[in-house]
């Protein structure tokens, strides 16, 4: 028995020695705790899945990208672009000093192939490029992109189109799958980091690409490990124990608590993500604009920000967040006015209330549950009963496929993938989108005309006019109640700096700007 115990102790000691010995450059390794795993590393899916956008932004480059921490779009792989007079052809000039991770040079063929692949697969980022017809390489460093209609959002939309190494992907295509199978667990990029290991649902490892064209500075992470820790409490403990250097947080409560932990810095960054309550304009009594206005005036917006978000959000101002181009600065934050609400209900002949309204919300999202409760309590003061329907997203969107039978109210978030009013107004408000994301069943001819024009108008002055009027109509018709604009929450060890989330990549972790100074 004693011998067994001795052997065990020896093994444990050996084990520890080897663990310590097996830590290459720990001080230059950044360990990130994420709440989810990417289902694939195919960067085309980055357009619709932030878990995929995180590895993509680190492994790949785009023609244009935002300056980290801002929504300002600047050239990345492109050096310049021009647009034909009719707005239907974009010509991009590319840098000629960019190498893919396999050492081959990035050129116009690669950009054309990336577009061609997206148009064939019609998935992910494709949702932003419905107007793109084809792309062709003009010469080694020039690409033409042809559109079927002018697209004013073209340049910012490019911030999620990650350029693939065409030869490498082609060599790994199987049965005409455009390399989808291969890209599930492989990468073909030119970005600062290369994918070196992947253990599904556990972790993936990125290592610095020495020949990265933007170069390297002292303090940048040589290696980044992305650990999947789905449970927020566990992520928090992992950070407090120093097992991870940076974590994403979802709960404002945890954020407030962790702020006081020694050696930890909690950070919040603004986003363009907005929460709405959709009012079903096709079902009585919400088909009456006075009722919709009244309901939008009873919600405790400030309470939402203070209590649910612990002050870490902003009350929404109109149909999209400030910071999106053409936002009308004259729009005030949504506010509460019970007196006016009562007057409007009386005018609509509903002063006694006695109504029951169905409200769909995501039951597994604490914020939406609390928002529903705030609304429920406010509505009861007007004699209105709110019947909650807790559903997950896929079930909720199915409820709204038929606006005539859809719930009276429902929560909906918009996470824009590029900063343009069209990203909000078209899917939420255009009548062609009823049965899709237009949960309000909203149809207004003038509004339709304005946003249809805005989609293809290249003149910024005219666009401003169109969107200013559209915002005014939205506020007047109240198809949606504009609730809050969220902020992302994160926490990190105090030796980590430079995490600058852009509102355009709001739940994405961009490693290149990060510095690790003094990590033990």
């Amino acid at each position, binding site marked *: 028995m004693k011998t067994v115990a001795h052997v065990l102790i020896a093994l444990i000691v050996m084990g520890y020695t080897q663990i310590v010995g097996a830590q290459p450059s720990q001080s230059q390794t950044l360990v990130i705790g994420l709440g989810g795993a990417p289902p694939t590393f195919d960067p085309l899916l980055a357009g619709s899945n932030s878990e995929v956008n995180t590895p993509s932004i680190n492994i790949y480059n785009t023609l244009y990208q935002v300056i980290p921490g801002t929504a300002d779009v600047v050239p990345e792989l492109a050096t310049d672009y021009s647009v034909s007079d009719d707005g239907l052809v974009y010509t991009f000039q590319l840098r000629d000093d960019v190498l893919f991770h396999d050492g081959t040079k990035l050129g116009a063929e690669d950009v054309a192939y990336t577009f061609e692949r997206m148009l064939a697969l019609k998935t992910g980022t494709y*949702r932003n490029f419905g107007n793109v017809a084809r792309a062709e390489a003009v010469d080694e460093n020039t690409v033409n992109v042809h559109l079927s209609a002018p697209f004013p959002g073209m340049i910012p939309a490019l911030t999620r189109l990650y350029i693939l190494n065409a030869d490498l992907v082609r060599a790994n295509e199987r049965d005409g799958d455009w390399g989808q199978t291969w890209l599930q667990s492989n990468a073909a990029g030119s970005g600062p980091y290369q994918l070196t290991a992947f253990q599904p649902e556990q972790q993936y490892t990125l290592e610095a690409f020495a020949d990265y064209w933007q170069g390297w500075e002292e303090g940048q992470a040589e290696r980044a490990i992305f650990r999947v820790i*789905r449970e927020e409490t566990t992520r928090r403990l992992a950070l407090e124990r120093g097992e991870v250097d940076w974590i994403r947080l979802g709960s404002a409560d945890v954020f407030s608590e962790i702020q006081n932990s020694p050696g930890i810095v909690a950070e919040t960054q603004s986003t363009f993500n907005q929460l709405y309550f959709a009012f079903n304009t096709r079902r009585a009594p919400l088909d009456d604009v006075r009722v919709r206005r009244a309901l939008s005036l009873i919600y405790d917006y400030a309470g939402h920000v203070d209590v649910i978000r612990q002050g870490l959000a902003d009350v929404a101002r109109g149909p999209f967040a400030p910071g999106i181009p053409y936002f009308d600065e004259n729009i005030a934050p949504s506010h509460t006015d019970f007196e006016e609400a009562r007057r409007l209900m009386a005018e609509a002949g509903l002063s006694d209330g006695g109504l029951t309204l169905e409200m769909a919300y995501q039951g597994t999202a604490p914020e939406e549950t609390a928002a529903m409760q705030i609304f429920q309590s406010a509505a009861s003061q007007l004699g209105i009963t709110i019947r909650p329907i807790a559903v997950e997203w*896929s079930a909720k969107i199915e409820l709204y496929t038929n606006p005539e039978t859809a719930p009276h109210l429902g929560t909906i978030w918009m996470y824009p993938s590029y900063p343009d009013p069209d990203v909000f107004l078209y899917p939420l408000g255009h009548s062609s989108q009823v049965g899709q994301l237009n949960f309000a069943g909203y149809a207004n001819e003038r509004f339709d005309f304005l946003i249809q024009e805005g989609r293809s108008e290249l003149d910024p002055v005219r666009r401003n006019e169109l969107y200013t009027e559209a915002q005014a109509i939205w506020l007047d018709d109240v198809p949606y109640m504009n609730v809050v604009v969220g902020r992302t929450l994160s926490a990190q060890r105090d030796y980590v700096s430079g995490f600058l989330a852009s509102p355009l990549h709001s739940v994405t972790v961009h490693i290149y700007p990060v510095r690790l100074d003094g990590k033990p």
Partner: protein
Amino acid sequence: MILYSLRRLLTALPVLFGVTLVTFIIANMLPGDPAREIAGRYATAEQIEAVRERYGFDRPLIVQYGVYLGRLVTGDLGLSFSTQRPVITELLNYMPATLELTIFAMILTIVIGVPLGVMTGSMKVPWLNSTILFLALTGVGLPVFWAGLVFQYIFAGQLGWLPLEGRLGWQLVPPPSITKMYTIDALLAGQWSTFIDAARHLILPGITLAIGRIASVARITHAAMVDVMRLDYVRTARAKGVPNRIVVFGHALRNAMLPTLTTIGLQVGFLLGGTILIEIIFSWGGIGTYAWVGIFMLDMPVIMGVTLATTLAFMLVNLLTDLLYGMFDPRISYS
């Protein structure tokens, strides 16, 4: 015995067919449209239609089911909608993690639960019996997610004795993949440090998982031992002066083991079905996590695949339990 096993496996086929049918019906009754889920939250109508066509969702359900069965016969469980990888490959990747955790939890269960049951069932020390049985009852009622979080807080957060989550420290590379169970693969490769690290990662989730099982196994063994200890042959053995140790372990336990064996078999079956909460809390990345993600993504092939795999595992464990009966009770014969 071999013939019996083959017969049992053959009779499993209609059950598996029934399971595919029921799962297919239930999965299709889940609210939500898989085409929308695959296309992404803000996909355009055109994208959703493209997905519907590509995946064959536009065909009648009966045709979709027929296509699925046709593939299943050849051992093809289809491709996961969200990852595009073959479900069979993913199951083989995720299953060993759950298997490793289950085996560890069951070892703990048997090593602790059975002796506890034997002790309380055969000894006449009322206060000790009451205490142990009280603890066993508490163990059965303990919610695993609560226990998991508390253990993490105490043993990883406060005391720092054990790793918090995951199957391996981030600084270690998994051992060469043979069984995909890190402890075993590390031993086979002679990587002691990896073995120790993987074993340490097993302790907290393993104990959390085992607590409830230990409690039920101890209760069942206790009840069976109490019954058996009252039987005439035990009394006869004692009257003949056979030492107590031999009476308990040689005579009584053997007969008392049958209900215990059934309980253990059932527990293993349930655990292999995925230990979703434990896997999420401890970031284990096994079949439970796979099922959880699949359900949220309305990933039909994954839901079907996991259900089939766990049904099969359950049936195999049941068969094994039946065969073990013969070892403990010679009156049971399968020849």
